[in-house]
């Protein structure tokens, strides 16, 4: 059953991508043209990003102000304790998703104590035998070379420990693979050498291209350089992705060229972006803030230079940002998280409608090659893992 759910979800995502600009969540939603002018009234956030769809990484538009809002994202300040590494700190990054907190607990509360105890046990045993059975202390060695009981014990002991580890581990996997509910915000991350492009297929086909911001001494005249407000060196990007907090996010990754990997440590999230495949996962960000990640699969020369920055904001602010980007919230004039079904609401009316809509566009879920080749689709990768496509076009 979960497999079918996943297929449906992918179909839904693809349907959105194929429409590329037709916002829909329910069939009742009025279609909006992709070229709709950005709503100038939107919250005063300047729209300087032109969201190009071409494969080339565009030079960043000249900044109009040193404020963060220059990329259209709501202004925010960086919390140095969350969302990015800290020099010299020992330990995992604080987590802002439920699964992340669960995994964080599993590492710090289960795995780390267990492996520390095992290491100490082995160290103590080694020290003891080295001291007690040194030649001076024990000149005549014993001839014992078997003890069935102890051999059985040290076989079963580790088995018990591993079972105790496996129980939360399997639970964590189940939680991580819970499909996104209908109405989740879909974010499609597309890896390129060496930048990320993003699409919000449910939100009027917003497209974002995120390049790493260069340092002051590396930019050409007029080009935007990184400031501390953007984030640390090698982590800051010109156009952040904005996502709502408290709302399930469906992440779909793919690639236009080689394999990349979309990773945000604070979300406990890493998903490869593979050409010819759509990988999907979901998560819910619990806390507003700025979260940084980096490409985590070797992808060529500038592998270290394609960071990921996510700005998590309250849903209302997200809706305003969507509007400022020229997109449209699906299915509601007054976007709010209240209309979005909560996780686990399987088989909801919204989801069924969405699946129907996807099928109406793409045909059966097992034949998804069509939307990937749709001329309105900006994606370069084929939508069907098993079918021919136009990867790397």
């Amino acid at each position, binding site marked *: 059953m979960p497999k079918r759910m996943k297929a449906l979800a992918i179909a839904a995502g693809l349907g959105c991508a194929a429409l590329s600009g037709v916002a829909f969540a329910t069939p009742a939603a009025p279609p909006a043209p992709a070229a709709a002018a950005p709503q100038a009234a939107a919250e005063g956030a300047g729209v300087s990003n032109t969201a190009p769809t071409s494969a080339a990484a565009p030079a960043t538009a000249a900044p109009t102000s040193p404020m963060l809002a220059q990329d259209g994202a709501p202004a925010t300040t960086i919390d140095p304790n969350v969302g990015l590494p800290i020099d010299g*700190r020992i330990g*995992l990054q604080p987590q802002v998703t439920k699964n992340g907190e669960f995994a964080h607990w599993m590492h710090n509360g289960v795995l780390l104590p267990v492996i520390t105890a095992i290491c100490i046990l082995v160290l103590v045993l080694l020290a003891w035998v080295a001291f007690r059975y040194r030649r001076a202390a024990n*000149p005549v060695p*014993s001839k014992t070379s078997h003890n069935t009981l102890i051999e059985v014990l040290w076989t079963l002991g580790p088995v018990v420990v591993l079972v105790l*580890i496996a129980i939360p581990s399997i639970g964590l996997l189940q939680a991580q693979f819970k499909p996104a509910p209908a109405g989740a915000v879909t974010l499609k991350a597309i890896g390129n050498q060496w930048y990320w492009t993003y699409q919000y297929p449910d939100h009027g086909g917003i497209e974002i291209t995120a390049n790493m911001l260069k340092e002051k001494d590396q930019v050409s005249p007029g080009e935007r350089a990184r400031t501390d407000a953007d984030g640390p060196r090698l982590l800051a990007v010109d156009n952040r992705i904005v996502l709502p907090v408290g709302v399930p996010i469906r992440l779909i990754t793919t690639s236009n060229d*080689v394999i990349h990997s979309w990773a945000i440590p604070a979300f406990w999230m*890493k998903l490869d972006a593979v050409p010819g495949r759509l990988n999907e996962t979901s998560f819910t960000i619990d806390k507003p803030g700025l979260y940084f990640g980096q490409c985590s699969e070797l992808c060529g020369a500038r592998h270290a230079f394609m960071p990921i920055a996510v700005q998590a904001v309250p849903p209302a602010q997200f809706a305003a940002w969507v509007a400022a980007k020229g997109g449209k919230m699906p299915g509601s004039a007054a976007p709010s998280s209240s209309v979005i079904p909560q996780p686990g609401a399987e088989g909801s009316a919204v989801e069924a409608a969405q699946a129907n809509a996807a099928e109406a566009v793409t045909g059966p879920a097992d034949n998804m090659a069509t939307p990937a080749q749709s001329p309105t689709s900006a994606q370069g990768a084929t939508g069907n893992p098993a079918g021919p496509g136009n990867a790397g076009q």
Partner: protein
Amino acid sequence: MTDTALHPGSAFVGHEDHHHAHHDADHKPGFFARWFLSTNHKDIGTLYLIFAIVAGIIGGAISGLMRAELREPGIQYLGIWAGMLHGGAQSLDQSLHLWNVLITAHGLIMVFFMVMPAMIGGFGNWFVPIMIGAPDMAFPRMNNVSFWLLIPAFTLLLASPFFGSGAGVGWTAYAPLSTFGEPGPSVDMAILSLHLAGASSILGAINFITTIFNMRAPGMTLHKMPLFVWSVLVTAFLLLLSLPVLAAAITMLLTDRNFGTTFFDPAGGGDPILYQHLFWFFGHPEVYIMILPGFGIVSQIIATFSRKPVFGYLGMAYAMVAIGVVGFVVWAHHMFATGLSVNTKMYFTAATMIIAVPTGIKIFSWIATMWGGSMSFKTPMVWAIGFIFMFTVGGVTGVVLANGGIDDYMQDTYYVVAHFHYVLVAGSLFALFAGFYYWSPKWTGHMYNETMGKAHFWLSLITFNVTFFPMHFLGLAGMPRRYADYSAQFTDFNMIATIGAFGFGLSQVFFLFGVIIPTIRGGKKAEAKPWDGAEGLEWTVPSPAPFHTFETPPQFK
């Protein structure tokens, strides 16, 4: 309970025909025939050991370059090195590409041209025939072919940066970065290098399996073989079964690159993930190929210096068999972030954890071997004890990484780098050092200097941990691996790691000039059996071992 029958070699009588010493020189061919056309397992073993030392120096020098670059944030030296390599000023991308060339070369050299030749080709060739009482390997000339295939293989790899921009695809060479991602002859040369190295290892594996199954001295049943021979036997099976899969995978890479096939290209119906499945079906057994002979070496040493037979001999032997078998069905734990299904991840999580059980049996059995023993702490023994603890540390982080859900954080971070260096450096390499000190009297005929050996151990142990322990913290902080540059948040631990790495490198320079070369050139003459607790046939022949051993098989009573 006592059982001397499980004490390999204890029932053998020294059978070295003493007339041999007089005629020894008569049997030796001239220099060229002896070293270039060799059919003698000891000479071929020596060639392998020298080859591994040379490759280790090159691979280690490359890691020195890498740690120098990573000492602090920013690109320090890559541009200079790229200019030296290709001439003239190099663009940023070319400098960054050189980084990928360095990590690729470091990985491939250490795996295929250092650890494997030293363990299997070097110590395996030298001591397996002697330990089972055989006069030589089953196919002596094929043995020579195995070694000499490594020379063109290594040459192809080392030459690849000079024909094109260098292979910067990582030792895993994932498609499509390794297909349309990097045109030019460099990657093709690296692939052909792996083909040759793989062919060399397959031939070697056939040779070891045949030798061990057919040429044991009368009375030496499989269950009486020394554990080192067991470890090489299991390793040879892993090589034989896994390397053809690698050969297939990289052949498909070659045809994808050059002949228009699309095995790994979705545009033609192929799948990049298929390559990863094929690669790791080889790649995971490969990591056991690199550690199992180390287990064997350590088992011999622990028993010798505890003056006690190995505890739970059968359990030790079959734990290695179990590790080998289970090692073939856990490969996808290297691919937890590729988008596997939930059931696949659960299976590979569980299967991977199971490997901890036979590994635990080995750790506990080594400790139980020492328990009740009469231990002396010669250099081989301190290396072996260091191995046990450091390998435990590397092993338990492996249990952490076995969890598919945890890997959504850990995959491709420095935590993984720390993990596999604990098992490959403090595991395989420490076992190689232990083996060197243990068997160098037999190899060179001289005793190494005990003080120098102990100094080498403590220097290496400390600097190794200074280098690699902070990498756990880098991984926990989220630093991805294979990065030429990092943000300032990762500076402290990288700086510590670089300091440690240079210390570790200097420790190995000390080993080369303070131990290896002096021991080969001279030193106290070694007795046939320099360790009073040692058992086994290799200690019944003189030191250095004569050119021919066991022309008539020793009798097992």
